[in-house]
């Protein structure tokens, strides 16, 4: 309250007077004040919506990963050389194992707080990928990747790929039975790569699987190469975010040409900074009470042993599922063996997911022909094709995920493993089509409901009895702000068949491409409901304001009645 009267200038405070010297010294050399003024950095405005926090979860869990990961490197020994364990965990005492596994046991049992940090690290990794995926879905569902943000979308795809590889590399480091089984799968995947597979296998593993170099090599990848790339890409992601300014939801006073929200200093610095502590605190509590990857229970890696119910970390589940449900195709030609049964699900399919994701903004732009900048987010219902497409992709991902847990599902629910596999094999192709159609219908239904609320107002809950005894519910117009929010989106384009001939009567060049595009546009906009026209709204206003039939006027403050019949006002 009354911040204005108590307003003090920092240069007049005791702290300000002391700091003026050093800050001036820095500015003499770096010119920070000028840079800050030009970009309005300190008071940069950020719009507010809960969904804008998802990317922040990813960012902060990455910072948690850097901090906890650094701690773990103080003790972890990335060596596959043999040693005999002699530590606090007595069941494994005297067993031969690699230094990697032994040092992970030491971190878990002999370094105080080591287990906690290991568990925070693992939970934060799972959270990092999860937050990236949910953030990506938010961006996709709301069309936030549209011009001018396509490059930032591609950077995001790069971050996702790196995050997956980084997670897998980390999972492989402790050299326990489960992580070794994961590497055995990577070995099989490398071998399945046509023609050069064996070379890749021998070069990456330094000889025959498992060799003795893969863990030191993955360690370098895990703590240096990929984190450096991730940091660089995150930096670029943030710089572009600041340059483009954040997208916002449309509404009264919020347009394509402005951004409405709170300044970075103090509100967003506090909210975002505070949120780092929340993410760290949350993962720390998870590390305290939820066990993750108890490597001591699996034992050291042994290529002739495996535990039933072997599962990768959750984000690799879709690849695992694809590998499980793939038919056993393998062929021999040109004197080479082609392992389609591994190569298609483990290499081509993830590539397809990412490739379609990367290409989507450009494909959509080609279909719609929309070259404008977009800073207002689109409600998912107002882009039924896009929304349905994403849901279809999520369905395919979900089916693969079920496939990845087919053994667990079979034992927990007493179902036939083969039946689940067949369900996934067929479902992978059928279910996305079904969910596509359902989602599109739901979107169109919601568009209609929006138009209805504009044209017929909302249901007030006031029941009126007419002179001839009939009962009707009174409708009232929505507040103008809500009406504006509901109609603040693009009108549908007029679809026209491309001209077959140019103005000279000659067959138009590129007419085949133009026809294809017209067809694509027709499919893209098929069924979408346009927002009401000016005339429609005008008629509706007259109709709703007509008090002749109604004995009582509702008044400007009226907002309907509650379930108990009490009128609601502002």
């Amino acid at each position, binding site marked *: 309250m009354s911040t204005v009267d108590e307003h003090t200038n920092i240069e007049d405070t005791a702290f300000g007077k002391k700091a003026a010297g050093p800050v001036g010294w820095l500015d003499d050399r770096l010119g920070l004040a000028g840079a800050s003024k030009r970009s309005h950095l300190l008071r940069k405005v950020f719009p507010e919506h809960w969904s804008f926090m998802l990317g922040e979860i990813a960012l902060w869990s990455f910072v948690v990963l850097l901090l906890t990961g650094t701690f773990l490197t103080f003790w972890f020994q990335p060596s596959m050389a043999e040693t005999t364990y002699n530590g606090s965990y007595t069941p494994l005492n005297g067993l031969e194992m690699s230094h990697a596994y032994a040092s992970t046991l030491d971190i878990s049992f002999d370094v105080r707080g080591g287990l906690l940090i290991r568990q925070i690290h693992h939970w934060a990794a799972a959270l990092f990928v999860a937050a990236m995926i949910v953030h990506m879905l938010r961006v996709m569902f709301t069309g936030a990747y549209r011009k001018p943000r396509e490059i930032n979308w591609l950077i995001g795809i790069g971050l996702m790929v790196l995050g997956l590889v980084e997670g897998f590399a980390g999972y492989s480091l402790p050299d326990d039975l489960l992580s070794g089984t994961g590497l055995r799968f990577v070995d099989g995947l490398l071998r399945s790569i046509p023609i050069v597979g*064996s070379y890749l296998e*021998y070069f990456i593993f330094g000889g025959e699987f498992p060799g003795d170099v893969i863990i030191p090599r993955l360690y370098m990848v895990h703590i240096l190469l990929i984190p450096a790339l991730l940091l660089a890409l995150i930096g670029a992601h943030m710089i572009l975010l600041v340059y483009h300014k954040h997208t916002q939801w449309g509404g009264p*006073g919020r347009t394509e040409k402005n951004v409405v929200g709170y300044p970075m200093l103090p509100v967003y610095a506090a909210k975002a900074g505070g949120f780092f502590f929340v993410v760290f605190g949350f993962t720390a509590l998870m590390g305290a009470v939820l066990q993750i990857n108890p490597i001591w229970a699996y034992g050291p890696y042994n290529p002739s042993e495996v535990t039933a119910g072997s599962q990768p970390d959750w984000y690799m589940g879709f690849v695992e599922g694809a590998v499980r449900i793939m038919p056993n195709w393998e062929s021999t030609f040109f004197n080479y063996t082609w392992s389609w049964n591994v190569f298609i699900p483990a290499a081509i399919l993830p590539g397809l997911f990412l490739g379609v994701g990367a290409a989507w903004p450009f494909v959509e732009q080609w279909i719609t022909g929309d070259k404008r900048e977009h800073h207002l987010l689109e409600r998912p219902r107002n882009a039924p094709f896009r929304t349905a497409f994403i849901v279809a992709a999520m369905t395919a991902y979900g089916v693969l995920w079920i496939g990845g847990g087919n053994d667990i599902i079979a034992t927990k629910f007493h179902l036939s493993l083969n039946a689940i596999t067949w369900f996934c094999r067929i479902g992978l192709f059928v279910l996305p089509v079904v969910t596509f159609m359902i989602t599109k219908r739901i979107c169109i239904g919601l568009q209609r409901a929006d138009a209805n609320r504009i044209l017929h107002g909302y249901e007030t809950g006031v029941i009126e009895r007419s002179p001839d005894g009939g009962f009707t519910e009174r409708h009232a117009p929505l507040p103008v702000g809500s009406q504006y929010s509901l109609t603040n989106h693009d009108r549908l384009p007029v679809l026209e068949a491309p001209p077959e001939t140019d103005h000279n009567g000659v067959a138009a060049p590129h007419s085949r491409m133009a026809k294809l595009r017209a067809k694509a546009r027709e499919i893209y906009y098929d069924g979408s409901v346009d927002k009401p026209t000016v005339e429609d709204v005008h008629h509706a206003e007259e109709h709703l304001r007509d008090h002749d039939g109604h004995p009582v006027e509702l008044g400007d403050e009226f907002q309907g009645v509650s379930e108990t019949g009490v009128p609601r006002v502002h």
Partner: protein
Amino acid sequence: MSDELDQLTDAEPVKDPGLPAHQHRPTDVDPAQELRAERQITGMFTLASLLLIGFCVAYVAIDKDQTFLGWSAMNFTLGATLGGALLLMGVGIIQWAKKLMGDDEMVELRHPAASTAEDRAATLEDLNAGINESGFGRRPLIRRSLFLSMSFLALPTVIMLRDMGPLPYGHKNTVWKKGMRVVNDVAGTPIKPSDLQVGQLVNAEPAIMYEKDKDGEAVLHGTELLQEKSKAAVIVVRMKPEAITPAKGRENWGIDGILCYSKICTHVGCPISLWEQQTHHLLCPCHQSTFDLADNGKVVFGPAHRPLPQLPLALDSEGYLIAVSDFPEVVGPSYPELARDQKRLDDKS
């Protein structure tokens, strides 16, 4: 297109009513609420400090072996104090922002992402001046030879990776050879047919894995042992002889219904171990490929393509199971040169 769009904007059915009036928070208008929020937030930060001191106390006071409700007491206490403190700090800072910091919404204007035409022209001019002064365009000989040397830079980059590993030599040989005993993989003891009952499965290894040289050192150890294990591990099963339908040429590969198969899945190499006695099926726990051991290790379900390689068995003079030869088929997951290697194995036998 832009004219069209301007018309569309005019045709907006509802005009923008502008930003709604600012609504004050309870903490803005009620000093009691403001004071309360201040106390709450200070309370959170103070409690966080106490928890962090608690963390240090727990670090020195709690014994590593102590448990609490089934959790490691150390892990639980450290995590709960640290996590609790961090959460309180985070929530406190956010509450401060939400309840007490200025909450007047600000409006900032956007600018197109593109540079202005002037900026583009000026930059282009600089670029052209630079290129012209370099003579990059006028001196094709230098330019092309530079590109040539740049592309040759790829050669050392690639060739330097050559020593990452040996050239592939395939996976057609394992340590199995004629006369090698099949031993139990727990104790390394040799197996007699009478040790196995019908329906029983035993995980086994070649005897060399347990052999010691004259100095008492294991013949195979460390990486080499793991590499050989990842190819040579086997399972020995006993079925009713009449249930088995051996392929042509394999009639004498078993002893009284005892057969020996590679344990390494031909899909991506997991050790296969889930045995269904009744159906003679062996299921891989990784990707659920299923092999029929009564029918020459044929694939009956799942993503594996090739049948499990079978190891021909015999008995030595003491009546223990031995291998007649190495596997006649390539063991483990497929690889590009598999077809070639398999042909060589076929030619040899």
